């Protein structure tokens, strides 16, 4: 249906901080007014809760990783479109060992991570890369805010987590980063997704999202005083400072130019990456109790091909609005 009032949920993470900044500095308002709509931007402390809220229909759009977009809203039957592919994790997620030099040393250890999150996926991919499987370790679910404290306890000897925790943990005595997401580039994507039906009926909303995003990212990536001020503000909002924030950004491959994002989304590479992801999710039973194969939930890729069940496409990568931004047609 057509509507005028939209709600976006975002949570605190390096790649999504522009949303908060945009809301605070009138960028959201500017674009909303341009399209004659209103957009309410809500900050979540709790990432999972923001996705749940979106999945339950309380929000029109949410910031989410590709993996969680598939396992929560898409597997929950909410047809979801990735409006913006903002960045991919290029070192933001890491496997860290205590008293161990290489990934192979992880064998037999308990590993603390947020189960079923991108960390879990990263671990699976890491183990894969050295010919091990999850049977070789013991996974212990640990809440992300407590990772730094947890790492300092004696019984924790291996951990998978993400930034800002990673950068603090690697500085602790005895910590070694043995694998990180830069070794699986493009597999952990940070997206801004929206309800497919909503953007179909209200393309202006998606356009506004793209406008907001690229305005802010351009500002943030600029090597100017304004850019520095923006990064400082985002750092403060995420509980650290400008230096800490820039450190996190360094581990993030940001598609500051919309054309880069379009190129990635329409490349064949995306299909291969998403295939890893959906196999992992199926393996863990996260595609729903009725899923009998990784194909259960269909994924429409940016180049038009469909991965899995074409009759049940619930996650779509749509380059349209990023393309419009690249073309200056917003």
């Amino acid at each position: 249906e057509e509507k005028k009032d939209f709600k976006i949920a975002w949570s605190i993470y390096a790649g999504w901080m522009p949303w908060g900044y945009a809301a605070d500095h009138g960028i959201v308002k500017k674009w909303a007014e341009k399209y004659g709509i209103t957009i309410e931007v809500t900050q979540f402390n709790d990432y999972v809760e923001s996705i749940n809220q979106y999945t339950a229909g309380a929000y029109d759009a949410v910031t989410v990783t590709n993996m969680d977009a598939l396992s929560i809203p898409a597997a929950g039957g909410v047809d979801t479109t990735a409006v913006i592919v903002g960045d991919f994790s290029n070192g933001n997620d890491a496997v860290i060992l205590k008293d161990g030099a290489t990934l192979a040393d992880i064998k037999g250890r308990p590993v603390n991570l947020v189960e079923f999150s991108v960390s879990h996926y990263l671990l699976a991919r890491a183990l894969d890369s050295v010919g091990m499987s999850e049977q070789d370790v013991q996974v212990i679910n640990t809440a992300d805010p407590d990772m730094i404290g947890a790492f300092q306890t004696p019984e924790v000897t291996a951990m998978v987590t993400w930034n800002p925790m990673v950068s603090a943990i690697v500085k602790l005595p005895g910590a070694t980063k043995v694998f990180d997401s830069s070794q699986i580039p493009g597999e952990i994507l940070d997206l801004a997704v929206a309800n497919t039906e909503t953007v179909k009926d209200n393309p202006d909303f998606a356009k506004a999202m793209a406008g907001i995003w690229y305005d802010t990212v351009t500002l943030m990536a600029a090597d100017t005083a304004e850019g520095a001020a923006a990064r400082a503000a985002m750092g403060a909002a995420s509980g650290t400072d400008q230096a800490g924030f820039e450190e996190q950004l360094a581990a993030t491959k940001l598609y500051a130019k919309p054309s880069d994002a379009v190129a990635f989304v329409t490349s064949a590479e995306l299909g291969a990456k998403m295939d890893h992801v959906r196999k992992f999710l199926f393996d863990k039973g996260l595609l729903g109790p009725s899923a009998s194969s990784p194909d259960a939930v269909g994924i429409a890729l940016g180049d038009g091909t469909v991965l899995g069940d074409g009759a049940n496409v619930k996650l779509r990568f749509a380059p349209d609005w990023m393309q419009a931004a690249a073309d200056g047609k917003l």
Partner: protein
Amino acid sequence: MRLINLHPDRGTRLVLGLAPFGALMLAYLIGSAVRLAANPADKLLPALTTLAASIERLAFLPDPRTGDILLWADTLASLARLGWGLGLATGGALAIGLAVAVLPLARAALSPLVAFVSMVPPLALLPILFILLGLGEVSKVALIVIGVMPVMTRDLALAAHALPREQIVKAETLSASTWLIAIRVVLPQILPRLIDSLRLQLGPAFLFLIAAEAISADAGLGYRIFLVRRYLAMDVIFPYVAWITLLAVLLDIGLTGLRRRLFPWSELRA
């Protein structure tokens, strides 16, 4: 007849008591039907059949990954933590509460501390707890103890303090020493209150248990709830919440029965 004197009979009472539960159930069914009509894969309010299937899977079929029956494994893990936590908290509260009530010196030294600690939000101190006690069972039990014990201690000290001064004097005229007053006069009289206090702390104890398990665990009721929250599996969360509630209600009833059996005189005050 005044409403205050209008006592419903047994049947009416039963019907009235069940009505709100029926209403809740109905609201759920309607909500679920509406949402499922809009999106058949909706996860928020699963249909009864989905719930039943999940319950069967959780409570009766072994988990393919570990071979355990999840609900029982989780329940055992959680109840063990709860039992330890509540047991230690009860013992500690009894010892400190008794000392505070009987010994003016202990009261002077400990009661400000207990009053202060009972106001500290324990969840905020979790990181410290972890580092001091590690991520294992100890810190989960410790969270329960820290969350529950100060309140119980204050409650017991108050109960002991509320004993009429005359009873203490009477005991002294019966040649009791401080120690004998503590164990033969004060202790037995606060034990029923201890059980009641424990009952009142069941809710908070479950809360802290869930919070601790949410932070780090590989089994437990709270662990499962927070784990499946990641994919909004309300078909697991609802049965678990209902099960926790049932456990708490059963514990509550059991404790009340225990108090009645152990301390028949405590029922007689009227």
